[in-house]
């Protein structure tokens, strides 16, 4: 991967939760179109990395630079980062439980309009990837159409995950950040979510996912990073990681 291909790039990022130093000189790059997995044990700093990219506080990024499409987004507000085409699907309950499925999806349109306004006013955002229409989303996830008037909180865990991903896809998402997409899901459902992620990737959206379930993540990832105690300890393709027994045993326990 040459540096020019990089859609997202983290350069020696140091991030803190209060006084605790969580990320230490994290550098990583995600190329346009690939599925990249960030693996590691609980507390290694995976989620912190995603939150830093999405602009969530905490963590506080005190040093280093996060750039997206060549633009420095390190100190930006979450909604401005979202306007530039990065969507975060956070872990656990990812939807608005008391809004209906249709309303959850509709929110994306409202915010996208807001985002375009931001883009116009800054004059530097290019909307390359236009989001899916409601109809395309329903084609992709038929279960959501069946349940569109139901409150999102009444969906199963897998359906909620699908809904969160679907909402992200309705926005002009160039980079989809998935935090533990398989967490708490039954193996059969994991396969469904995997399918969905693959299809999204094939449609041209770049994906950076964080996962504790390293085996499942290696199945769909093109490249993997392994994080341990806030530092990157491995970088390579999924095949290379599969063959690197020492790294897998030492940092991932598989």
């Amino acid at each position, binding site marked *: 991967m040459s540096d020019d291909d990089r859609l997202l790039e983290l350069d020696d990022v140091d991030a803190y939760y209060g006084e605790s130093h969580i990320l230490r000189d994290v550098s990583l790059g995600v190329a346009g179109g690939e599925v990249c997995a960030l693996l590691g044990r609980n507390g290694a700093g995976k989620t912190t990395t995603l939150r830093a990219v999405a602009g969530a506080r905490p963590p506080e990024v005190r040093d280093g630079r996060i750039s997206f499409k060549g633009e420095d987004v390190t100190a930006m507000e979450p909604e401005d980062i*979202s*306007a530039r085409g990065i*969507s975060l699907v956070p872990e656990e309950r990812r939807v608005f439980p008391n809004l209906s499925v249709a309303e959850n999806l509709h929110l994306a*349109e409202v915010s996208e309009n807001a985002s375009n306004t931001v883009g116009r006013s800054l004059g530097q955002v290019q909307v390359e990837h236009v989001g899916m229409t*409601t109809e395309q989303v329903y084609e992709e996830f038929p279960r959501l159409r069946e349940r569109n008037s139901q409150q999102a909180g009444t969906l199963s865990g897998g359906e909620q995950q699908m809904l969160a991903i679907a909402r992200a896809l309705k926005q002009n998402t160039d980079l989809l950040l998935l935090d533990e997409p398989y967490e708490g899901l039954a193996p059969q459902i994991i396969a469904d979510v995997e399918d969905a992620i693959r299809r999204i990737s094939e449609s041209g959206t770049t994906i950076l996912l964080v996962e504790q379930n390293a085996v499942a993540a290696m199945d769909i990832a093109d490249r993997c990073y392994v994080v341990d105690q806030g530092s990157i300890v491995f970088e390579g393709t999924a095949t290379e990681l599969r063959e690197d027994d020492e790294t897998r045993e030492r940092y991932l326990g598989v």
Partner: protein
Amino acid sequence: MSDEPTETADATEEGGAVVERERTEREFPSWERVRESELFVIAITTVALAVFPWLFARAPVISGVLQGYQDLATLIVIWGIFAMGFNLLLGYTGLLSFGHAAFWGGAAYAAGVFSTHVSSSPLLIILAGTAFAALLAWALGFVALRRGGIYFAILTLAFGQMAYYMALSPLSGITGGENGYTGVELAPLLGSFFLQYPVPGLDWLVGTWTYVLVGVVAVVCVAAANRILHSPYGMVFRAIRENDQRAEFVGLNVWRYKLMAFVISGTLAGVAGSLFTIYSAYVPVQSLYWTTSGEVVIMAVLGGVGSLFGPILGAGIYLYVENVISGVQQLTLPFTGPGEYVTLVQEPVVLLEGFGAYWHLILGLVFVAVIVLFPRGIWGLFEDAAGAVRRLGSDH
């Protein structure tokens, strides 16, 4: 994607089951349906507000049992607007403000001062008071919304009390200090209708022109609030109430939407405050005191924060207990004693002497009972009951 019609789902769903189609339509109603339902809300509100003073103050039997009177009907509608506006913030956006007295009282003072020095036209007075409240809400919201949760509540409380003490002493040259503002001047409505006069031909129904003015403004406020809540703004407000950080990740500028909700809410409080000045031709300094903010919280929660009309009902119940129940000397069994329309026994059966003095306690008990038994408020209880009846009906 902004030009993509939201009805896509039902338009292309020909193959789907009929049930599914209906569900979709309910979710994304066509424009005609929105208009219909909006007209429906306005019509129902108009009819209810037109009949209310008659039912409350003049209807046979009912008004006798209720012991309502015209002025209280007017006051209930004014506070109803206040509570409804307050609830846009508490019920729909999930922000608890303890400083809404600043908007109510601030608008009341602004309306009063305007009536003395600029124009005494009732409509212009309302506009002036409301504009003042909107600006004040924008300024206070700009600062108070920097913090969330309990800190937001404390900040608004502090600002409200600041307004109270400002009016009490440093600004007493304008506000009249402890005596309140007494210089309110009121010209006839539209130059020809004296507010305190009965409406010719309709005085049996609506009473005075004051009530007509208050009622019409209330209908406009309900229509505006209803429109806002059914727009994407309403949906975003509810999303923020559920989880504001998640809303940020969806790409919503949460802070801006919160400020918007705060300003809309403060503006409606300002409409109500201006009407209060017209209603009482006087502004007491207590209108800025924190208890006013507390009262509107109680009204909203009592009536039900999950609905548009609940807080209006809550305002009615609160003021009824405060003004009518508090005046009841003895608690007697219904339909006993000579003063009733329907009398079974001439001799009243007294249950409790000096009953009215306990009105705070009664209100407290009602409040606790509602919170414990019906967390969605009295309106929520009505909705549940209506739902149960409908289910019973559809079983057959």
